[in-house]
């Protein structure tokens, strides 16, 4: 039974309630009031509960624990009111036939209680200050908010999962069991741009329990027309943190983790390891091929999408089902000349919104085990004609990474291709600097050093004005286009061409068009 107690807990009585002749062991957890929290010295604290709902939700958790781990008795009591240092704030006790279940159930109960039961903690500090803290139930970990700015207010009746998910729980394919699956799912979204800005809220609102956001970029004004989770006043802020804030405010029942860095061959394994499904919401081939290879190597399901102006494509790489991969279609990363980025080709904001939502749908279909298209289907969707084309991808060239069976990254890094701005400056004019951004981008944020202009989009019809012997560095806003072009020029016989690593944005974050 779950209960709330205004008075100090009677441990003997609580423990006695778990005794049973069939039980071979007992595990307990006690949460204590300690003297420090996040660097502040705590004098005492206060717990406030929303009793009717707390008891209902607490008992639901205990029933789940019994169901899930097959334990005999599960008890939990949480204090309310004023507590002094060293007081017991919460007590969990479980008896079971064997110790394994007892420990696991105990852990499950305390984690779920912290997350789901509407109980708030107010700390009184030695310095006379006080504050509501550690609202894990709001999934606001590390998101220090005070009482006044609390998204749903402690005074009001807290939101309940059953109410939040009511319309979705009605679906026979979802129901409480499906909702529970979503709550235990871990999905990583790489790229919090146009696709990610649509996929992320859909995943969070559906209740995907743990969501990761990987993006090293900052919000630009020109992002806002398609990345509608960000607001004008957030320009210049890191996208990952801003997106996480949005999701936490949207759904208090999910946990959000940020990875505010660019995906690289060096960090991709650590990034993916904790997740079951990865959404490729990136906007460049380098990241797409890296994610493809990483999904194969580390056995992750990858939901990939790419858009172009008014159309896009979506493809699921599922190594668990031995499905084909991106390299089954494009064995080599395509050359720079044949693709337009959003900056070059333009995009209507609704297009990535459609495809990002489709990516979240693919993830939900997999998590809920809903009916879906065959694994080897690549979908091409033209939003002008609304024609959908389902193309079968055959796993037909035996050299593909998806058939190598290797559990290591097949990615080749391009060491020696990139130069830092420090290296460019150190060359003191010995390096020819070519700005390969499009004209409008250059005008919006001119590069303030001697340079030649050569928009990447005219390649390969024209070559940049450079000689084979001249050491040359290409610059674009983020270092993707310049890297493509440098690779292509090296292939075309220019060994002394380099790419400015991370692009011009690393120099003047607010002065470079995306």
């Amino acid at each position, binding site marked *: 039974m779950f209960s709330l107690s205004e008075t100090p807990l009677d441990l003997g009585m609580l423990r006695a309630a778990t005794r049973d002749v069939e039980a071979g062991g007992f595990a307990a957890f006690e949460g204590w009031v300690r003297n420090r929290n996040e660097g502040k010295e705590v004098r005492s604290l206060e717990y406030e509960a929303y009793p009717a709902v707390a008891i209902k939700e607490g008992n639901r958790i205990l029933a789940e624990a019994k169901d899930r781990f097959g334990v005999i008795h599960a008890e939990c009591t949480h204090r309310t009111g004023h507590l002094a240092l060293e007081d017991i704030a919460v007590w969990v006790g479980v008896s079971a036939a064997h110790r394994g279940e007892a420990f696991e159930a105990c852990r499950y109960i305390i984690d779920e209680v912290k997350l789901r039961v509407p109980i708030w903690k107010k700390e009184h500090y030695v310095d006379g200050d006080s504050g509501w803290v550690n609202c894990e139930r709001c999934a606001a970990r590390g998101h220090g908010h005070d009482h006044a700015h609390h998204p749903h207010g402690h005074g009001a009746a807290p939101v309940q999962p059953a109410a939040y998910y009511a319309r979705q729980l009605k679906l026979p394919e979802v129901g409480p069991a499906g909702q529970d699956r979503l709550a235990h799912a871990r999905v990583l979204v790489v*790229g919090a*741009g*146009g*696709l*990610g800005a649509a996929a992320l809220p859909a995943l969070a609102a559906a209740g995907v329990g743990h969501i990761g956001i990987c993006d090293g970029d900052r919000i630009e004004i020109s992002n806002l027309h398609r990345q509608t989770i960000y607001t004008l006043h957030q320009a210049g802020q890191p996208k990952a943190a801003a997106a996480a804030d949005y999701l936490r405010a949207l759904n208090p029942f999910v946990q959000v983790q940020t990875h505010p860095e660019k995906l690289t061959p060096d960090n991709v394994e650590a990034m993916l390891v904790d997740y079951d499904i990865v959404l490729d*919401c*990136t*906007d*460049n*081939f380098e990241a*797409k091929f890296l994610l493809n290879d990483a999904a194969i190597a580390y056995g992750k399901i990858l939901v990939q*999408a*790419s*858009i*172009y*102006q008014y*159309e*896009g*494509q979506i493809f699921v790489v599922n190594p668990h089902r031995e499905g084909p991969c991106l390299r089954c*279609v*494009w064995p080599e990363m*395509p*050359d720079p*000349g*044949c*693709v*337009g*980025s*959003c900056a070059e*080709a333009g*995009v209507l904001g609704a297009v*990535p919104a459609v495809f990002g939502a489709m990516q979240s749908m693919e993830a939900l279909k997999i998590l809920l085990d809903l009916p879906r298209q065959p694994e080897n289907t690549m979908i*091409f969707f*033209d939003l*002008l*004609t609304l*024609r959908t*084309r*389902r*193309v*079968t*991808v*055959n796993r037909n060239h035996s050299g593909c990474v998806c058939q190598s069976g290797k559990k290591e990254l097949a990615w080749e890094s391009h060491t020696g291709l990139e130069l830092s701005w420090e290296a460019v400056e150190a060359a003191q004019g010995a390096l020819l600097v070519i700005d390969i951004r499009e004209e409008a981008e250059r005008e919006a944020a001119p590069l303030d050093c001697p340079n030649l202009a050569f928009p990447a989009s005219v390649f390969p*019809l024209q070559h940049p004005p450079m000689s084979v012997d001249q050491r040359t560095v290409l610059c674009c806003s983020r270092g993707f286009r310049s890297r493509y072009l440098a690779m292509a020029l090296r292939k075309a016989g220019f060994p002394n061409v380099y790419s400015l690593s991370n692009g011009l944005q690393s120099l003047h974050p607010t002065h470079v068009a995306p």
Partner: protein
Amino acid sequence: MKIHVAYYAKLREERGCSEESLDTETATATALYEHLRNEHGFTLSEAQLRVVINEEFAAWDAPIHAGDTVVFIPPVAGG
């Protein structure tokens, strides 16, 4: 013979339409693309594209038959 041809992404832009019906005697995907490239001035080479015949990725030397749908697909990476 009559076939159906569709274009995506940059090819659609360059052709100015998403799809069209053609009367052609070209025997393979390669020959068809070369013909269309000459006619419309496509900037992409065959090596930069994939061809889909009747909703399946196909080899460039695959034969084309009357009534087939042939789709030319450039790589796309926007997001």
